[in-house]
């Protein structure tokens, strides 16, 4: 199949990306808490074209028993992509990529969940990717944090994840689909926005030290914006109760500030919360690395980076589950 993107410029002369965004702009994000009935806590999150649904069960007894930790609880995150979530159908069941993402997500969450408060139990976090469009692990972790709060699980703090990187020799915030496949570097990053503690960090591609530090800075600032969206989603979910404590009766409730969507999949436009305004001080396009510039001048395509976020199944699929038939 011929590659439609091979000659495409990921960033044009005006600093505009393929999807019309500026370099420092987030994709539209919509977050909704408490959307599922059976799960103890849940969150539906749309991030660009990503659609992620997270359900949390717990704390609950651990099975099998030998996995119990007598001193503290464990957090088990399971990242799963639906077969229809990617352009080439994925066979149902976890592949190696999903296993790795599940692991680093569990670890990121264990950094904030106060597991000491419930020994011998597990908190199960199920991340279902219904539609994938680059950055699903970050969307998953961000949604998981909301779902855990919704479930009333004690946590030190919320967690936000976001991936920035380098595309077409520019450092860019919130890497999108084509950018992920054909960009030069990708840095998924999970952080506690309030304290700046980093709980998830991966990198692939090629960055100088200064570029890397700038990317971290971009991620950090954007994380604060996403945190506000998380908080708003939780407040909206419980807006009826926000005026009072359990057992009390309140004054007539003021109408909720933002309309509560009746369902995450409602026909409302994806960008319900609109494009975030971007940074208050727009970043100047960072200086391009000299080596890269030289390459461009000679007319070669930018080196193809093997993105982590390859939605297409990458062949080393070890799942034996044939799905049903």
């Amino acid at each position: 199949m011929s590659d439609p993107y091979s000659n495409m410029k990921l960033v044009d002369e005006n600093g505009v990306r393929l999807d019309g965004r500026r370099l420092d702009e987030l994709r539209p994000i919509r977050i909704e808490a408490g959307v599922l009935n059976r799960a103890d806590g849940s969150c539906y999150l749309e991030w660009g074209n990503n659609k992620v649904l997270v359900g949390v069960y717990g704390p609950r007894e651990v099975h099998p028993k030998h996995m119990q930790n007598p001193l503290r609880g464990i957090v088990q995150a399971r990242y799963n992509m639906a077969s229809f979530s990617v352009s080439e159908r994925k066979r149902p069941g976890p592949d190696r990529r999903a296993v790795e993402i599940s692991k680093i997500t569990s670890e990121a969450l264990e950094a904030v969940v106060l597991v000491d408060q419930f020994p011998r139990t597990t908190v199960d976090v199920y991340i279902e990717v219904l539609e994938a469009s680059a950055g699903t692990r970050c969307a998953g972790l961000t949604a998981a944090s909301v779902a855990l709060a919704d479930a009333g699980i004690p946590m030190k703090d919320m967690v936000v994840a976001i991936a920035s990187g380098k595309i077409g020799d520019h450092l860019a915030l919130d890497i999108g689909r084509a950018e992920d496949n054909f960009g030069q570097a990708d840095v998924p990053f999970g952080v506690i926005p309030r304290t700046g503690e980093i709980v998830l960090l991966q990198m692939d591609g090629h960055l100088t030290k200064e570029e890397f530090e700038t990317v971290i800075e971009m991620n950090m600032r954007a994380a604060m914006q996403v945190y506000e969206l998380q908080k708003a989603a939780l407040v909206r979910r419980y807006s009826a109760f926000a005026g009072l404590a359990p057992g009390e009766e309140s004054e007539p409730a003021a109408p909720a500030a933002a309309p509560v969507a009746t369902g995450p999949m409602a026909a409302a436009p994806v960008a319900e919360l609109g494009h975030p305004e971007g940074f208050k001080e727009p970043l100047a396009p960072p200086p391009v690395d000299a080596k890269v510039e030289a390459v461009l001048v000679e007319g070669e395509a930018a080196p193809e980076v093997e993105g982590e976020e390859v939605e297409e199944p990458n062949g080393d699929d070890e799942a034996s589950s044939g799905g049903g038939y």
Partner: protein
Amino acid sequence: MPSDDMVDLVPQYPEAAVRRPRGPDGKPLPRELVVPGQVLAEDGNVKPGMGAYREGGRIVASTLGIKNVAGGYASVIPLGGQYIPRVGDVVIGRITDIGPSNWLVDINSPYPAPMHVNEVPWHVEFGETSNFLKPGDAIIVKIARVTESKRVQVSMQGPGLRKLQGGQLLEVEHSKVPRIIGTQGSMISVIKKYTGCRLVVGQNGLVWMDGTPEDIGLAMEAIGLIVEGAHAYGLTNKVKEHLQRAKGIDPVKEAEEEARRAREEQERRAREEAERRARDEERVRQDREKAEQARRERDERDARRREEERARIERERPRDTVEEEDYLDKATDDELCRDADPGKQGLVTVLSPDGESLMVLDEEELAECPPEKKEGQGQGGEGQEGRNADDTQEGQ
């Protein structure tokens, strides 16, 4: 008979009973919803309560809920979450497993709770556990112990703790329990009244109800309204009206009726109060009178007794010459003579003033009495005069 109400009225979160701060218009201020990680207080003197932890000099929320800073504590009243057992909680459990000397109780918590045969009010022989409680049975128990690693033990020994016969069990989010109970049991009384169901609410979110199937259904509807609680304002009234309508009672008329009944009750009580007061006053008055009367009688009795006593003493007492001499010494000649009794020949009895004879005067002595005195003494009067005048005659 242990009362159903014992479980109903235990408050879930005592901290929530703190008085709500009010704004300048007197209305309670809206509470703030916080997410984990939000700072609750920056004051180093504030201590972390439930749902919060200390980070340096700050108190930070650890669960989603309502911020509550009061009495030196910063805490978060949770809106959800699993029920984590605390010692002393009274909960409803279900028997899920059974052993020869214990049962396993599901208390709607991540932690299974064993209950040993020592913790029930019956005497259970080894291996006879199934005779008392079987898997599926519902019971009211209290959380007896919770260890560090959250090993939980429950006990059925205590007032109100028992096996629940029949009925249906319902599970709600445990954070909604205070709403179902209502302030001072107001909500649960409404449900009981209009559905006629027996109702027990455990702090772990399990609710037991017993009644006709229709009434149970109605009670479930009421509880559903409460937990959905979107219209938190006037929730008790809303539930009440719903139940009334379901029972064919017109809420408006019923409210009027209730108001009327309340008024009548008030009047009746006022009347009774007044009557009681009047009766009390009357009684007090009567008591006082009686007391007065009694005192008077007592005084009189005392006086009489004293009199009698004195008289008796006088009568019975042996003649006391000192006393006679006293009289004789003190009495003048005139008095002596006056008191003499001429009836006795040659002897005159002298009487003391109170009529008792004191002595007898012979003639000689009598002769010494002044003449006038003798007049009253009959025949021997003149003769005696002569004698007196001439005291030296012999043998008379």
